[in-house]
């Protein structure tokens, strides 16, 4: 009985979040496209693009939460996977420009023309096909994460050491992509996109569609994370997070688990990057900057690590605050606020907004003894072994 109650509330919880995302994914584009401009309820295009960006960040935050919140792997280089996914998409978009580039070269992107490339580098082969690019969006970050993780987890690089070498990884990629000789547009990166799948990227309809697609991707990513963390594998991940060597002595091959979840997470980050690029219109090596990756970790910390909703919420809240504070009179002070936010959250809200909200509810519940029993019962149900919680 209790388990059923809980199953329901759990499903309701995930569903709550998913429904808000889905509702936004449907209503915002519709409002943008159907309502007349200037109407009170019409969401202007620039906000659609802006919120599309937030949604991509939310996917990135989910991917970080999956490994950090549930498996204790703090990657300070997740921006690298995000950026690689973005580059894969950017390369597709570049090749779609075709003869509409400023030099009118049908094959070579503009930057290659003025850097005197005579032919397309092999790394660019195949990116004129969407399916190939889409595959690469998953494959490139996934493969990098797999190789990196295979080396690191097998030799038991953990904790801060892992954090620091992930940082080194993204820093090395940053330097590499900055190089013009690397063949990916150097510091300027890839920009001035025209079409995606034949639709004009600047068009309102395309933007609305991309937004809806990002929301869909967020929903799918959420469901994947949800089913991973609520499976027995999720319990193993938490076991590894809390007592890694104990898990080993129980016969779990810790490195395989880490590798699996790290690679999955990198693929998700790649998808987030791929959706991000057509919406912001540029991908450049700046995305590899170690600071970006750290900032993404902070979104998760602010929202509440170990809670999927929290991670997504954190990304949206922090980025909204950033947008808000970087305009107008507060602009010179926003770094103070951002910095202070990080310090205060780690000091005062170690479990993030969602965690704190949760603790507050808990204590409120304890004040009402009548509800206490129900609460205990609710807690009980979560771990009922025969409960099929990945039903969603």
């Amino acid at each position: 009985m209790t388990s059923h109650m809980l199953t329901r509330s759990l499903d309701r919880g995930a569903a709550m979040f998913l429904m808000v995302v889905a509702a936004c994914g449907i209503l915002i584009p519709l409002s943008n496209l159907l309502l007349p401009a200037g109407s009170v309820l019409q969401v202007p295009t620039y906000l659609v693009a802006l919120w599309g960006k937030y949604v991509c960040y939310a996917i990135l935050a989910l991917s970080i939460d999956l490994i950090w919140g549930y498996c204790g792997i703090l990657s300070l280089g997740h921006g690298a996977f995000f950026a690689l996914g973005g580059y894969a998409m950017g390369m597709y978009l570049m090749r779609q420009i075709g003869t509409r580039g400023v030099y009118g070269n049908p094959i070579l992107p503009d930057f290659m023309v003025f850097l005197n490339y005579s032919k397309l580098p092999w790394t660019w082969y195949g990116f004129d096909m969407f399916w190939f690019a889409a595959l690469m969006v998953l494959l490139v970050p996934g493969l990098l994460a797999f190789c990196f993780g295979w080396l690191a987890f097998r030799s038991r690089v953990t904790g801060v050491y892992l954090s620091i070498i992930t940082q080194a990884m993204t820093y090395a990629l940053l330097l590499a992509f900055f190089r013009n000789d690397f063949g990916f547009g150097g510091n300027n990166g890839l920009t001035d996109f025209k079409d995606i799948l034949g639709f004009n990227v600047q068009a309102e309809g395309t933007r609305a569609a991309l937004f809806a697609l990002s929301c869909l991707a967020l929903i799918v990513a959420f469901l994947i994370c949800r089913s991973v963390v609520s499976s027995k594998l999720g319990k193993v991940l938490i076991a590894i997070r809390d007592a890694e060597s104990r898990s080993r002595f129980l016969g779990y091959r810790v490195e395989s688990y880490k590798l699996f979840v790290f690679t999955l997470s990198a693929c998700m980050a790649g998808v987030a990057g791929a959706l991000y690029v057509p919406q912001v219109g540029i991908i450049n090596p700046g995305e590899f900057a170690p600071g970006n990756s750290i900032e993404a970790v902070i979104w998760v910390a602010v929202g509440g690590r170990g809670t999927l909703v929290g991670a997504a919420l954190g990304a949206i809240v922090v980025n909204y605050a950033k947008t808000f504070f970087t305009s107008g009179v507060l602009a010179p002070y926003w770094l103070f606020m951002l910095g202070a936010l990080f310090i205060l959250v780690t000091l005062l809200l170690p479990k993030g907004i969602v965690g704190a909200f949760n603790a507050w509810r808990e204590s409120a519940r304890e004040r009402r003894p009548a509800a206490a029993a129900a609460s205990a019962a609710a807690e009980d149900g979560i771990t009922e072994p025969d409960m099929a919680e990945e039903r969603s």
Partner: protein
Amino acid sequence: MNVMDNRATSAMLYLDGVHVSFDGFHAINNLSLTLAPGEMRAIIGPNGAGKTTMMDIITGKTKPDLGTVLFDGVTDLTRLDETRIAELGIGRKFQKPTVFESQTVQDNLLLALNVDHSVKGTLFWRGSKPESERIDKVLETIRLTDARNRLAGSLSHGQKQWLEIGMLLAQDPKLLLVDEPVAGMTDVETHLTAELLKEINKTHTVMVVEHDMTFVRELGVKVTCLHEGTVLAEGTIDQVSSNERVIEVYLGR
């Protein structure tokens, strides 16, 4: 070596001439020890005698510089890692109770169950009747049925010790290594733990490291005393505790 007929020894656990040093400090020094199948052995020794390091060697956490460590007569443990050794059937309880504090008692046991531990297996795992029955049984054995849904972190110290023993049971290994199971327990709890271990010993080979002499006496099994990484004395508790060198070591020179 790996053919059944060529068993080097009939012992469940066989250590011979094992050496380990950390930066010049000889933690284990020519240690030789055998444990017969079905036996329960108590290991005593002062601090720094190498008890925990010995367990580390058996479970693959530390690699010896020299020496042979055989399990079940055939398997060279020095070549394997912790996971593989655990899969072979060696379970370990740590000196400091180590349970998964943010998960429930029941989940702790679930994680310890001796079933498919691969990524794929856990990702697509579905609960089954035999599994939940096993868990129920273990819960009963370790007297935590009522606490099954509590978070392991909220248990008392003694309960955590038991939960960890329960996890060993769920793991159902051939050999249990139990490091200081009664540290911090009340007398009643200590007594109950001794009973529990004796019960377990009926079906498993057990090695217990313990300081508490009352407890060791209660177990009533063969005792090995370690000192400076080597075996100082072996025999019944009375024999060992009357050994002059043991007394010297314990009281200091």
